[in-house]
């Protein structure tokens, strides 16, 4: 039998220090590839169903009674909000499940961490992989919105990157929370029913935030969904926002992303060191 080589000969530690996150991404994408048929059909069915049911169905009542919202047909008004919701939902699904699994269910993060890959790199890898899925789904979503006539100009396609930004910002933050959570029993339920649903319902998704009473508007102000939807509406049909608010929306998402990443890194490193 040949003598065993020192592992430093076959393992390039410097390379891992630089690109370790990409190995994590690769691992996640291999898992995702297995679910490609399911992911694709969900990515196509979701926008279709929501646009037909709410955009066309409810839209028919609204267009008949109020002639649309914000000067455009209801579907045009609704589409950017749905696009951003889908982006955020996809990101959450794809960071929460692997994080809970990696720390608690099969403890794979501890295995990865026993290679030279750091906790920070695992966090980056999980988020990047989730954003690959977001890009995939949101591109399909955008195309379907386009087919429904939701973009009034070519500029509308830019709502895809702004939705992506919200997904990255909120995804990073929630990934940190998932790493921090001790009790995974009801994590999905709490996240779905106490976080995602209120955001979905009170972020000016279905009507302008300004038509909510003032004591409910704060949910929208805190919600990445509202900020990205405002940007999306500006881009898709020229919804009016001031220069200041434009900067606020972008600034909020950037701040949330950088805080979220720092938070997630800390939680990952602490949990792995336990």
């Amino acid at each position, binding site marked *: 039998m040949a003598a065993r080589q020192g592992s430093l000969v076959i393992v390039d530690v410097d390379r891992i220090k630089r690109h370790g996150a990409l190995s994590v991404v690769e691992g996640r994408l291999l898992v995702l590839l297995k679910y490609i048929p399911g992911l694709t059909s969900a990515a196509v*069915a979701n926008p279709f169903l929501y646009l037909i*049911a709410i955009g066309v*169905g409810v839209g*028919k*009542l609204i267009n008949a009674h109020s002639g649309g919202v914000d000067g455009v047909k*209801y579907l045009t008004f609704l589409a950017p909000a749905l696009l951003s919701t889908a982006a955020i939902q996809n990101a959450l699904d794809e960071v929460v499940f692997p994080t809970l699994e990696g720390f608690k269910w099969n403890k794979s993060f501890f295995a990865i961490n026993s290679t030279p890959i750091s906790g920070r790199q695992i966090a980056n890898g999980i988020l990047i992989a989730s954003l690959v899925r977001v890009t995939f789904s949101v591109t399909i979503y955008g195309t379907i919105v386009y087919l429904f006539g939701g973009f009034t100009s070519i500029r509308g396609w830019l709502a895809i990157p702004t939705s992506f930004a919200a997904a990255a910002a909120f995804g990073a933050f929630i990934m940190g929370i998932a790493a921090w959570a001790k009790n995974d*029993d009801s994590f999905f339920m709490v996240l779905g029913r*106490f976080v995602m649903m209120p955001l979905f*319902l009170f972020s000016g998704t279905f009507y302008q935030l300004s038509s909510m009473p003032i004591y409910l508007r704060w949910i929208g102000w805190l919600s990445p969904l509202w900020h990205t939807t405002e940007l999306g509406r500006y881009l898709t049909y020229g919804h009016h926002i001031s220069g200041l608010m434009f900067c606020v929306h972008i600034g909020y998402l950037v701040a949330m992303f950088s805080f979220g990443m720092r938070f997630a890194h800390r939680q990952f490193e602490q949990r792995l060191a336990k």
Partner: protein
Amino acid sequence: MITDNAVLIAQSRRGRFAESRYSGRAHILLERSLIAFRNSAWLAVLSGFFEPVLYLLSFGYGLGHLIGKIPLQNGHVVSYAMYIAPGLLATSAMNGAIYDSTWNVFFKLKHDRIYQGMLQTSLGPLDVALGEIGWSLLRGFSYAVGFMCVVVPAGLITSWWGILAVPAAVLIAFGFASVGMGITSCFSTFQQMDYINIAMLPMFLFSGSFYPLTVYPGYLQGILKSLPLWQAIAMVRDLTLGIVTWGILWHVLYFVVMASVGVTITTQRLTKLFLR
């Protein structure tokens, strides 16, 4: 006969209804669910109460302004909030029942093997099916009562018939829970469980909770009206808006059939899985 000898207790069932499948102790499963609920499941159950309330607040208030009044088939018009409230009640009864009878059941079946533990005692599969479904009914009942406590003061119920919306919600939960449990007991992987989500979303969106089906062409209306959620919403809406005719009994029958088919499938599947 009162005894604390397990064998004599089992013997006393000789010659009774379905003696090998039913021990007459389905209520013990309710007792178990209640203990588990006290321990940890209360948050999940509580969240199910908030769901319709939040939808009502968001859609009823926000969209109500944009939509205006909704005309009913009897010529009356009602506010948008009055229109969607029964839909949300029926939907929450469905969601609670489905959540309990699909994901929870799947976990108890495959992951924790709790039913295996139950069926190695003198309990029978029919006890398990009825007990688990019964818990869903209790949940459906409490959601309905909770929701009524919000919508009645808000003036969204205009008829005394509305009180019957509570038992109607229980019947809806019965139908969905038993079919949900029946289907779940046929599944073996998590991937298959996704089929349930796939079926639920379109039903939620297209069963007339948020707008009348009249926005769709006639043939499509016919298909949508055969879905259980449409049946549920139509039944509750007739009651809360006080437009009750004998026709409502068709909806009742629909759910009675659904429930009995579900209970039968569940009992047979549990027998097959654990007793042969």
